[in-house]
């Protein structure tokens, strides 16, 4: 399938997962990601896979735990309140070193919040969410095409590092239609799952999928081993896109759908002669620290972080810059989407205040 097709984000994501070899999907209905489950329900039986609607998000993520532990490529998807419910299972999956893909099509919060697009789950996705010392790799696509590409890659990354990977979209990316191509992805090299519980066939010692280590020093040793893996990921997997940054005096930074809006504002500002560029983190964890740390402080006077939240990623931007460049924030929240003109106004104010 190399020609372009017009698809809704949620459906394109589901198709990409199936093409990546995801044979099992466990979910629970919640707006605005329900099309993922609907697509899976229709396609999985025809394509040698399983779709199961669980009794709750808690059950769904634990079905993912079982299936991942049994060696399968498996995915679940939900939206913010449902992802909160899954945090128990996510912590256990991280603690048992199981690969899987978790999709969060983020909506406004806290609580029941709203059903409009938001980015207010950044802390939850990148700083833990569940209990314990662990990380998820978090991908933040900004177009339906990138959603497709990153979904395919997510399964490979999960298998390579034996850890859960989150695709963090938002209600807008999930609901909008864009042309996509499915042919482009080259799979990465995947290690064999010798640890999976597939039945011993009386040929090997039993495999145990587990996150319990009752001796403190054993648990510490395991966490330190896992941290070494995290260090490799921080080194190798951090990703961002730089846009018109070469001569920029102001850097706008945004991820996901907000980056599309910010990019329009950057283009408008360029038309008015303002030297502005954009850094778009593609991985939220690992955060692309170097993209910020290596900015030329003689040239770049301001960084503006734009989010659909009260300011969550901005903390990582500030930590990466280590106070070398002043960081401003602009955000809309609760499901309100910022306009390019609002962002442009902020850019102009910073430019005039230099």
């Amino acid at each position, binding site marked *: 399938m190399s020609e372009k097709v017009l698809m809704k984000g949620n459906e394109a994501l589901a198709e990409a997962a199936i093409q990546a070899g995801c*044979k*099992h999907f*466990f979910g629970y209905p919640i707006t605005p990601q329900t099309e993922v489950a609907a697509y899976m329900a229709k396609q999985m039986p025809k394509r040698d896979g*399983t779709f*199961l609607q*669980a*009794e*709750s998000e*808690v*059950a*769904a993520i*634990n*079905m*993912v*735990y*079982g*299936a*991942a*532990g*049994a*060696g*399968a490529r*498996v995915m679940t998807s939900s939206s913010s309140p449902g992802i909160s419910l899954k945090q*128990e*299972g996510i912590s*256990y999956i991280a603690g*048992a070193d199981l690969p899987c893909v978790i999709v969060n099509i983020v909506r406004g919060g806290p609580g029941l919040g709203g059903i409009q697009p938001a980015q207010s789950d950044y802390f939850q996705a990148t700083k833990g969410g569940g209990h314990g010392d662990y990380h998820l790799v978090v991908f933040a696509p900004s177009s339906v095409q990138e959603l497709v590409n990153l979904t395919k890659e997510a399964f490979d990354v999960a298998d390579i590092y034996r850890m859960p990977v989150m695709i963090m979209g938002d209600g807008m990316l999930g609901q909008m239609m864009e042309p996509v191509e499915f042919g482009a992805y080259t799979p990465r090299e995947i290690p064999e799952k010798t640890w999976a*519980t*597939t*039945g*011993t*066939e*009386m*040929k090997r010692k*039993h*495999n*145990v*999928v*587990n*996150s*319990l280590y009752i001796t403190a020093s054993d648990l510490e040793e395991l966490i330190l081993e896992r941290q070494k893996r995290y260090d490799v990921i921080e080194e190798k997997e951090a990703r961002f896109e730089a846009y018109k940054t070469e001569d920029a005096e102001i850097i706008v930074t945004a991820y996901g759908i907000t980056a599309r809006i910010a990019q329009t504002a950057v283009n408008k500002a360029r038309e008015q002669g303002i030297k502005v560029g954009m850094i778009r983190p593609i991985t939220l964890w690992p955060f692309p620290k170097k993209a910020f740390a290596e900015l030329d402080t003689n040239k770049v006077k301001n960084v503006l972080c734009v989010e659909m939240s009260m300011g969550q990623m901005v903390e990582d931007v500030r930590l990466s810059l280590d106070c070398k460049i002043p960081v401003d924030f602009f955000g809309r929240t609760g499901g309100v989407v910022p306009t390019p003109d609002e962002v442009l106004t902020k850019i102009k104010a910073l430019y005039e205040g230099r």
Partner: protein
Amino acid sequence: MEQVFKRPHALVDVSEHYCPGCGHGIVHRLVAEVLDELDIEGKTIGVAPVGCAVFAYNYFECDMQEAAHGRAPAVATGIKRVHPDKVVFTYQGDGDLAAIGTAETVHAAARGENITVIFINNAIYGMTGGQMAPTSLMGQVTQTTPYGRTEQNQGFPIHVCEMLSTLDGVALAQRTTINSVKAIKETKAAIKKAFQNQIDKKGFSIVEVVSTCPTNWGKTPVEAMKWLEENMLPVYPLGVYKDKE
């Protein structure tokens, strides 16, 4: 010389951590004997609970997964959907199965998930030191019911086999106990049937074993067995509640 009694192959040769007089050791052995007799150890994947049997993954020779508290039937569902031709069982206590994991239990049963559930009902939380369980008896004194379980405060015990037997997806719901050689033999036969049902693709099978917890009941092993007979068996009558042919 013929060896007439030995450790089942499916039971790992280690010292278990269970207290003297606890029923888990007996039931572990019965499960392992059944895995041996049906010759399914190599194709079985077990799911351990949270509670006293949390270390069951160290005691069975088959592949094992350790589930979060109460989630064993959901974890087993995930495994079974990946490996429909393998044998998948959960081993759970009363807090795990009938309190925090009620939803997972009921819905796995309602789906007729083709798995085997071994349920140990000893009317108390053992691992955390003797708190009220969903199956604690009326009036029973525990750490969290120091004045006894009352109708007004904690309500009534849950009868798992009776409740699940109303669901169409359930192939077998049987309650047994371990207070005599005869009872242990009956428990083993029920466990064997619960595994055979899965092999025959009959659906969800549960064996509830009424068991003892001398440590948290504050009794000797002998007293505990007597307490089980006098107090638990009248509330939890033994028998076959559902047997779908």
